[in-house]
């Protein structure tokens, strides 16, 4: 069995900054990532497209981490899925097969996934998350279709429309439907003002929309996607300030691509499987592991940084990565207490305004509870097992008021995605039927392997165990 001093799971901005900080302090670091290249979602495409120069300070910082990486003494294992964790042992799977890695300290930086909001027809090919469209165009130079509409809430819609508009392919971006009203943004002005570079970034996107004449419509949402074998049209409607669709406001638009997104949710499968204590904090994007001032979870030696510890963006992730790495270095005796304090304090100061900004994004741009009325009983909620809203509502009325209870009644969360996509949607349906707060509804319990691993590989790993 292999060993290392510090294993870092996830090579996005948080994992990269943790790895470099710890390696420079003299810690033996193994950096693991499921993707073939380091960088995470945030830096996807950065490697291919050197011509696109980073614009904001955060982009420049994260790009420079990626550039520094090869010169560091770090064991980089990309294309390696971490599918299990037991105490301080990680179960890995890569093209070379399955193996175990024991680490004195573990930093979990598994990032976030996108939050969506279902409507009839959202499983049709041609409907995808804004993130999926962004990866296609930025990393692969491929556009998802010719007539594209973006809908949901938050800045990623703008960023994706802007990226699509820069493509050389002949496409029409028919518009962005932003579900919230500008009035609801007002009370968050203070949080925004403390984050000038994020505002500048937003302004740059807005300019690119104006240049490309892309309509931006507040208070609109998609109520239905239509098509037989693939998406051919959508029906949209105006929503009032209470989130209710306004009768008679429906419009029919012919599209071949619909990109949807409502921000992000922390990926906590690994921290859950490890046994870390979690709590539900809407301002951080949902369920997050409880962490202390050095991002250590309730389990000694296991840390969570970046989106995993609460959705807050790349800058937060990089600062937290450094903080956790300093904590690890102190514990391993590579830093004195004085050195630690000197480097730790300025980092935590920088985190404060970011926290407020993250909280704004995670609450302002969420699907309005009243959107539940747009989810008809025929709407598929669990995409893996094709479980529809009607059956789920029935089960809830029958007494299934937690996710694990629902899982006993229906095949929800039992498909290959293990409920990653449907868990927040089921939570919403339970909220709507019972008024129970999300924290009481619970999470699905993740099981190893966290993502499917070939059966042969699992058999081999247990063989090694029994030897």
């Amino acid at each position, binding site marked *: 069995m292999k060993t290392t001093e510090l294993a870092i799971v996830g090579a996005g901005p948080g994992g990269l900054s943790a790895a470099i900080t710890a390696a420079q302090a003299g810690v033996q670091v193994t950096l693991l990532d499921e993707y073939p290249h380091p960088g995470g979602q945030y830096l996807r495409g950065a490697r291919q497209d050197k011509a696109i120069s980073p614009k904001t300070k955060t982009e420049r910082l994260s790009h420079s981490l990626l550039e520094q990486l090869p010169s560091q003494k770090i064991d980089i294992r990309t294309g390696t899925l971490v599918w299990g964790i037991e105490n301080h042992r990680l179960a890995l799977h890569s093209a070379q097969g399955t193996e175990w890695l024991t680490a004195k300290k573990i930093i979990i930086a598994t990032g976030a996934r996108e939050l969506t909001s279902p409507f009839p027809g959202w499983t049709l090919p041609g409907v*995808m998350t804004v993130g*999926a*469209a962004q990866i296609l165009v930025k990393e692969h130079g491929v556009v998802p279709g010719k007539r594209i509409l973006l809908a949901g809430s938050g800045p990623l819609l703008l960023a994706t429309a802007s990226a699509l508009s820069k493509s050389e392919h002949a496409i029409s971006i028919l518009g962005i439907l932003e579900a919230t009203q500008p009035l609801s943004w007002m009370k968050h002005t203070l949080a925004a003002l403390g984050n000038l570079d994020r505002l500048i970034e937003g302004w740059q996107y807005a300019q690119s929309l104006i240049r490309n004449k892309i309509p931006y419509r507040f208070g609109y949402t998609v109520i239905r996607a239509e098509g037989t074998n693939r998406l051919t049209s959508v029906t949209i409607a105006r929503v009032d300030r209470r989130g209710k669709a306004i009768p008679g406001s429906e419009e029919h638009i012919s599209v071949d691509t619909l990109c949807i997104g409502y921000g992000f949710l922390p990926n906590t499968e690994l921290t859950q499987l490890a046994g870390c204590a979690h709590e539900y904090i809407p301002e951080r994007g949902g369920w997050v592991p409880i962490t202390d001032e050095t991002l250590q979870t309730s389990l000694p030696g296991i840390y969570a940084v970046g989106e995993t510890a609460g959705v807050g963006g790349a800058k937060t992730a990089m600062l937290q990565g450094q903080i956790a790495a300093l904590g690890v270095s102190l514990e391993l005796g590579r830093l004195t207490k004085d050195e630690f304090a000197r480097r730790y304090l300025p980092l935590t100061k920088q985190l404060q305004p970011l926290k407020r900004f993250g909280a704004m994004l995670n609450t302002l741009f969420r699907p309005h509870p009243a959107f539940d009325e747009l989810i008809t009983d025929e709407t598929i909620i669990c*995409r893996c097992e094709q479980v529809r809203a009607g059956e789920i509502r029935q089960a809830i009325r029958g007494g299934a008021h937690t996710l694990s209870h629902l899982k006993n009644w229906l095949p929800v969360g039992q498909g290959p995605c293990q409920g990653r*996509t449907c868990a927040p949607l089921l939570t919403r349906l339970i909220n709507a039927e019972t008024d129970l707060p999300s924290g009481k509804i619970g999470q699905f319990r993740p099981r190893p392997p966290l993502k499917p691993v070939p059966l042969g590989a699992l058999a081999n790993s247990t063989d090694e165990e029994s030897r």
Partner: protein
Amino acid sequence: LLEKALKKVHQHFNIEINGRDIETRSGQTIAAALIAAGVLTFRQLTDDEPRGLFCGMGVCFDCLVTVDGIPDQRACMTPVLPGMKITLNTESKPA
């Protein structure tokens, strides 16, 4: 100029989709290659449940395809390799 520079970096080659050759380049995922070739439907759960790319980042498992005989591979996570044979399970199954 940029186009030329990129062409130098990327190798261009063919992969096979349900017996048809499509051109792709190194660094692309199967999902990107399929969509570039105009293929949106990657599989059919039942007659009226076609599926394609959804999350694009390995989370949702909607984009499963068969790669060189190995079923249920995520098209959005699997990079293309020269001569790869992809089978799309688009034969409709009874509901």
